[in-house]
């Protein structure tokens, strides 16, 4: 075997080793991530219910309306409230409602900005105390609720504050943090539910894309304290700096 042939063989073997090392780092990078099996945007929502039985006398909003804090939602007239006032049990007004104990009229107001997503009464309806009238979904803060199938070993590697990448329906990626996690068992499989928040989700241009219930996919990073942690980070930093990630 000539020296040139030996050198060529050696070079090829070294190249293969380098390739395998690169592939191993890619594998390790994948190993310390977990992809969600399902995930969706969740927005805080609050329901408005009648505080006293009565009749809806005016509806100021329609389904789907944008409302701001302090906007009037609807007005009810309550005979019971009037009687209570007569007996000295007058309720007082607050942010959510203006109460006129003399006439028994209650004006319900929005306490935060949002959108009316449910409306279950029209003027003239008689409602009992505690009956749901409207649901308002707030536009912020948005969060993502994601489900993962994690082995117990991987669950141990999921930490509060872990970095999570959220892939939105329009292929945009935003970065968030894991806030909390819980585990439930479904069909014999342990499903980890994690709540992820991200300030980037608050952008106004995301109002339609990242609306409540929009499907997204999430990749959370699991902590890696193995020997390959350093090299993998270096590789990922390199890829990020050259623009491949």
């Amino acid at each position: 075997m000539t020296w040139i042939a030996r050198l060529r063989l050696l070079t090829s073997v070294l190249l293969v080793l380098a390739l395998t090392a690169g592939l191993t780092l890619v594998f390790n990078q994948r190993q310390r991530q977990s992809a969600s099996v399902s995930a969706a945007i969740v927005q805080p929502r609050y329901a408005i219910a009648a505080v006293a039985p009565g009749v809806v006398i005016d509806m100021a909003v329609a389904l789907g309306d944008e409302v701001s804090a302090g906007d009037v939602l609807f007005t009810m007239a309550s005979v019971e409230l009037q009687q209570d006032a007569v007996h000295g049990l007058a309720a007082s007004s607050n942010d959510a409602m203006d109460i006129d104990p003399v006439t028994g009229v209650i004006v319900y107001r929005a306490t935060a900005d949002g959108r009316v997503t449910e409306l279950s009464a029209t003027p003239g309806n008689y409602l009992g105390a505690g009956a749901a009238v409207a649901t308002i979904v707030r536009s912020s803060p948005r969060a993502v609720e994601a489900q993962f199938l994690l082995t117990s070993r991987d669950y141990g590697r999921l930490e509060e504050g872990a970095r999570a990448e959220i892939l939105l329906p329009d292929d945009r990626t935003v970065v968030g943090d894991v806030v909390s996690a819980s585990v439930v068992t479904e069909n014999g499989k342990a499903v980890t539910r994690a709540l992820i928040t991200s300030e980037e989700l608050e952008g106004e241009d995301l109002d339609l894309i990242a609306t409540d219930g929009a499907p997204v996919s999430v990749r959370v990073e699991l902590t890696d304290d193995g020997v390959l942690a350093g090299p993998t980070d270096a590789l990922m930093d390199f890829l990020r700096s050259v623009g491949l990630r």
Partner: protein
Amino acid sequence: MPRSAHDLASVDRFTPVSRRAAATDRFSPVMILLTLLATVGCLAYGVFLLQPSHRGDLIPWLLVIVSEAILVLHALCAMWTVLAGTRDVRDHEYWRARDDLYLLSRLSQRGDPSRWPLQLNGRRVDVDVLITVFGEPLEVVRRTATAAMAIRGRHEVWILDDGRSDEVRALAAQIGCRYVRRLSGGGAKAGNVNHALTLAKSEFFVILDADFVPLPGLLEETLPFFTNETVAFVQTPQTYGNLHNVISRGAGYMQAMFYRFIQPGRNHFNAAFCVGTNVVFRRRAIDDIGGMVTDSKSEDVWTSLTLHERGWRSIFLPTTLAIGDAPDTIVAYSKQQLRWATGGFEILLQANPLSPRRRLSLDQRLMYFITATHYLTGIVPGVLLMVPALEVFFDLRPVSMDVGWGTWVVFYGGFYVLQIVLAFFTLGSFRWEVLTLAACSFPIYTKALVNAVTGRDQAWSVTGAQKQVSPFTVMGPQVCMLVFLLCTTAVGIWRDTMLGRPSIATLWCAVNSAVLLILVVVALGEIRAARTGSLAARADRAKVLATSAALAAPMPLSTPADAVAARHARTRLMRTTS
């Protein structure tokens, strides 16, 4: 009551072993049943892979589907060909011509059987035996030429020396055969034969490679076919005598299936092709196509194809009539396979047998298409080696995770295990060397495909046929693949411990590494053997043993020579009694 071996006198020329060998039918009903079962296994595996619900990730699935489609189609076609070959190619006309082969009127002049005049259809015929030599060792040429002189039936032996060796010329003079040396070297072996055909003018000619020692019955068994005027050539199998190490056994048994079952089957498609040695040609057929086809890596197949296009008939006779050498070093094996595979791909690219421009029957088109694509099955293992690595590194699986182990094993085994059982049954034992070699040869066939597509004639930079070359010169891709698979196996084991369950991908990587490791061990052993010089000696010993065993083996059927001997004995008896 069990009978022990007895000490009775032998009743005939046979021993129990040789009698059983002579009485065995190649196509036993069990073999046919196994072939049918394997066909069912093939089809079931194909259906299993194609089911949409079993599909995994796209890339590995495509790799597996394409690879397995090639393997499954070739396996199906091979089994079809095998089943077609159950009829004997020798018909009534053959046997009649065989009985009358030696000219009766001159039988009174007995003596040297190699001078007995031959006749076909009542007409005297001459035969030339052409031995092509290109730098082979003198002893090899001597053994072949001496054996060629001793073939029964009147014939002339020619040594066609492209190596231009004065020693070979002296050898020819010494043993009394003719010697031809040409001035130009164009057209390789076919060119050499064409040149000799301008001098040797007999009606039939035999081509023998320098290492193929012919048996005395070569002409007796083949010439009777030519009583049919449309027969262009009769090919006999390449039988190897030097099966003394892993490479030669692997390379030799790899051909066994082809010569024992595939070629006989191709007879019935009229698509048995010439393999360049141990073949008897009708001179007129070669004249009809303007000489042997040159300018190709596979001039034998091209010559056959051209003859078939001109309407000639070819015959393959599955009887061993010459014993030669299989390549017994990795370098020799690689060179041989590269040459054959490049030739095969050349046919596919330059003369696609399915093209309407070729004047072939549908039977022949299919058979030549199988020949031309056969070496794709050699590239497939290289593709399949990468599939487990995709799972280890990228989590990409060819088959859906929902398919259970049991289902997978049943269908996978239905194809591969049955194929191996069939090979086991036809070859008489499990030849792991063939599997090893087949799994490790993908770089050779890939290179052949590249060579054929680009039209380049690129071989390894191996110089000198005789000089010992390190096997690692040609094993670069295999060594790299081994390193890659070993690393992948290690990563796979790490991954499995992390995930807490064993995976089939890791297992495959480990098995494939082991197979490639065997090749490296063989290569190291070869280097050691080359140092001590024991390789050539062992090969020689093995071949001598095989040749003498073939010469001593009694024939189940009486030969024309037996008939002559019997007639002679009868006349002598009559003479003594009168």
